[in-house]
């Protein structure tokens, strides 16, 4: 069996190839080939992993400063690795053709992408806390590189990310060192046993430090402020890659700490003093707030990329919420959502990039009516938004259904309501996205644009088709989720090809999607044969109360699309987390000015005199 060494070696080779040859025209195709090879290795390894309790081991192991560092990829890491390499594959494919030719600095783009994949593979293959931290830092800095490569507003957002990431990293390092000092070891198995016997206070400290650090990457509220701009401003398909999988690295590490090392049973025992909540509730509610608040912030966005980036933050909440429920169904729903989300978020970002490539803007107030000019992009966006909204027949519905059902079965109705409210907000927001971009009236300046070439539409459509197929046959993706769930130590969810059967309510997507398609077929029959032929009018031939419309009249409703809702909601948005962030920055600047002033004007001899006086007094007093 091809092992972990081959995979990481191939990833390293990809980085070197991209660094050397990344500015060539065919660099994107080379990247596609290399990522496909990596994916092939992973899929082949997956067959071995699902057979038993297997792990992919690496032959590299270091003993440094009394710690043993090892690397091995469990089923959980494998699952995330497949998504990572897949996302990189589609990103590289998209950038291989016309888009890449039109951009400067593609060498840095390709190198940064390959470096990200390598760093993520190293992180996903860690077998003890120290190698986890090393992989974590590599991933953080690789993400910074890919965000900042082009400069401009993305670099400013990336700098903000850097500060958040360093703060998180210091929290993780603190937690890690605490574990080592108390338990004497950092290997996962030993730490699991050690934490089982440790007192609650210690487990709280470790959970908060490690959890907060990983939550920064995952953009859980209140550590989420950096991700909107950072992912939204990153140019091109790199945003698709980041949005699809980068923040899920935080989820991976958080799952290891919360579900694997500490365990949900222990979390439910750790009560927060003076309340009726426990640690598990804390995380579940943080996830729920992460679902709601960023989704409604996305509603206020006018830039398509920022809208998608904010939705990305919100969807992460579903994943954590499902896993915090503790039942096999919830865990399966949360893990499946990672894959589903990647499969529809990536094409959405790619479509928005395509639109921006053709029209020069991603501002929703300056677009409209592109459906006649870019129909394939429209189809992709349609598939993507149905998935993002979580409606049948796409795969987003399946994972959300699993999360909802598990919440109801576990009798947590408020969290269920919070999750559904998030979905409702998402539906509103994605409709605005597709309406303002593709529907409505076409602008005069966009009348001549063409569809993007096949090198860009093929990966988008393929991803959309992947989302549809994994929605039609959710059992396929659930088999992969099984591998991850087993490695996490959670019971498996019994499922079949079409979905899940339980005594209190089932889901069989084969029937749902099948009947939906059949009904649409019947509807088409009724529609086409039941009435007379329809005659297609010109796009500007609209009802206007008797007034003649010309192309100069902007007969399009897009600005402030949800005016009524915003009138109600906008005053509720206090920006408290932003206020807290600004407060911290001001505090740091104030302290900095104070210290700087001290160093410029300190009259040190006075201090010395005081010290001498104290010293002599102590000496005389002895």
């Amino acid at each position, binding site marked *: 069996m091809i092992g972990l060494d081959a995979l990481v070696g191939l990833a390293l080779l990809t980085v070197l190839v991209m660094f050397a040859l990344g500015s060539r025209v065919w660099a994107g195709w080379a990247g596609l080939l290399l990522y496909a090879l990596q994916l092939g290795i992973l899929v082949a390894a997956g067959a071995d992993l699902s057979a038993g309790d297997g792990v992919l081991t690496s032959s590299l192991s270091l003993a440094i400063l009394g710690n043993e560092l090892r690397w091995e990829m469990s089923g959980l890491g494998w699952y995330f690795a497949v998504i990572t390499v897949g996302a990189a594959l589609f990103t590289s494919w998209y950038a291989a053709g016309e888009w890449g030719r039109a951009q400067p600095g593609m060498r840095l783009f390709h190198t940064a992408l390959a470096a990200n994949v390598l760093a993520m593979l190293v992180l996903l293959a860690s077998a003890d806390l120290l190698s986890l931290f090393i992989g974590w830092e590599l991933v953080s800095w690789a993400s910074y590189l890919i965000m900042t490569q082009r400069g401009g507003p993305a670099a400013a957002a990336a700098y903000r990310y850097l500060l958040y990431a360093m703060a998180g990293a210091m929290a993780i390092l603190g937690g890690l060192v605490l574990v080592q000092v108390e338990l004497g070891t950092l290997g996962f198995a030993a730490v699991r046993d050690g934490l089982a016997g440790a007192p609650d206070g210690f487990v709280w400290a470790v959970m908060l430090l490690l959890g907060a650090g990983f939550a920064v990457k995952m953009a859980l509220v209140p550590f989420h402020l950096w991700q909107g701009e950072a992912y939204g401003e990153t140019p091109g398909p790199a945003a698709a890659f980041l949005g699809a999988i980068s923040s899920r690295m935080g989820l991976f590490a958080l799952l290891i700490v919360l579900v694997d090392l500490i365990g949900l049973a222990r979390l439910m025992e750790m009560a927060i003093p003076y309340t009726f909540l426990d640690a598990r509730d804390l995380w579940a509610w943080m996830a729920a707030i992460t679902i709601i608040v960023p989704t409604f912030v996305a509603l206020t966005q006018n830039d398509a990329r920022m809208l998608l980036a904010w939705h990305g933050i919100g969807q992460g909440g579903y994943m954590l919420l499902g896993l915090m429920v503790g039942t096999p169904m919830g865990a399966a729903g949360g893990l499946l959502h990672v894959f589903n989300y990647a499969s529809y978020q990536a094409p959405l970002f790619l479509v928005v990039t395509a639109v921006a490539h053709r029209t020069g803007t991603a501002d929703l107030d300056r677009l409209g009516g592109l459906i006649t000019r870019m129909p394939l992009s429209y189809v992709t966006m349609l598939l993507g938004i149905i998935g993002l909204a979580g409606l049948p027949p796409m795969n987003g519905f399946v994972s959300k259904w699993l999360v909802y059902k598990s919440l109801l079965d576990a009798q947590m*109705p408020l969290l269920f309501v919070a999750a559904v409210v998030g979905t409702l907000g998402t539906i*509103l927001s994605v*409709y605005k996205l597709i*309406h303002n971009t593709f529907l409505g009236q076409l602008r005069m300046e966009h009348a001549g644009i063409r569809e993007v070439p096949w090198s860009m539409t093929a990966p988008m459509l393929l991803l959309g088709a992947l989302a549809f197929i994994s929605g039609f046959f959710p059992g396929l993706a659930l088999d992969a989720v099984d591998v991850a769930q087993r490695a996490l130590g959670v019971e498996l969810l019994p499922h079949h090809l079409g979905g899940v059967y339980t005594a209190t309510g089932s889901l069989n997507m084969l029937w*749902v999607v099948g*009947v939906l398609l059949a*009904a*649409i077929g019947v509807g088409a029959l009724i*529609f086409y044969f039941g009435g007379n032929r329809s005659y297609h009018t010109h796009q500007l031939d609209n009802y206007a109360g008797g007034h003649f419309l010309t192309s100069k009249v902007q007969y399009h*409703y897009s600005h402030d699309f949800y005016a009524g809702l915003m009138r109600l909601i906008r005053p509720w948005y206090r920006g408290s987390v932003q206020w807290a962030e600004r407060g911290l920055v001001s505090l740091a600047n104030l302290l900095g000015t104070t210290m700087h002033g001290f160093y410029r004007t300190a009259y040190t001899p006075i201090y010395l005199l005081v010290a001498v006086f104290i010293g002599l007094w102590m000496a005389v007093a002895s």
Partner: protein
Amino acid sequence: MDLTELIVEILVMPMIAFLVGLVLVLMMRKVRARVERRIGPPFLQPLYDIIKLYSKHTQISHGVMMDIAVIMVLGGVITMEVFLPVPGMNGLALQGDLLTLIYLMMVPSLGLALGVGACANPNGSIGISRALTAMLAYDVPFIIAVAGVSISYGTTSLPEMIAIQQAQGVQSWGVASVPLLALAGIIAMHAMLGKEPFEIYVAPAEIATGPMVEMSGKYLGTLFVMQSFQLYAIGVLYTNLFLGGGENWLTFLVKVFAVVFVSVAVTNVFPRYKTDDVLRWLWKWPTGIALAGLAVVMLNA
């Protein structure tokens, strides 16, 4: 239940839904007429209207997407009916539960929204924007009610909920066991039908009927069909959740008509709320009632 029976049910259930829906539309128009001291249309008028619209000579379309969207609407409502259990026919309700049904009910609305967008008329877009906002408003109490009901019955499978209510008699019906949730549910479902005071998304005199502004001919006819299916679906869903389903078609239809009657009667005496007032009202009263009902359920659970 073998496959052929299932196929038969899949074919029959939408037909029944359509026919009963037509009668519900008739009831709606008759009630309005009586309130306005008129007689109202004859019995087959809803059917005549649909046939008339479909057979119009001029059918104007604003693009392929508009056609596809209307087909999506039709397909979505047909699918919806198959998952809605009625006396004697469970259909696919065992393959997709209450949550699936709720989301399937959103598919026709999404299709309509896409089609209206393709019409490129800002009146339509405004209407859809208001419709979606109203959806956000009424779905909150609705979801709370659904959550409470599921936890109260311990299942999300509709046939099972019906079976529990029928087995344990009237005191286990939703209106008796979770009255607050039933009250919130009826208000939310009334808003779901888009009837006054929540019909801001249509607003005929303000935005030229909103989503329907560019719809004529068979497009409008399909929307009529959608309306009849929707009345039926809402009535049946409420009956199944809160009124114990129906042991036979007679009692069942009486309950369904009663539910829809409440809605169409109330609608005649109200003006229209503005969009943010819709939000404010629906997020205050029905939501509050639903939360209170949910608290009662959780305390008893």
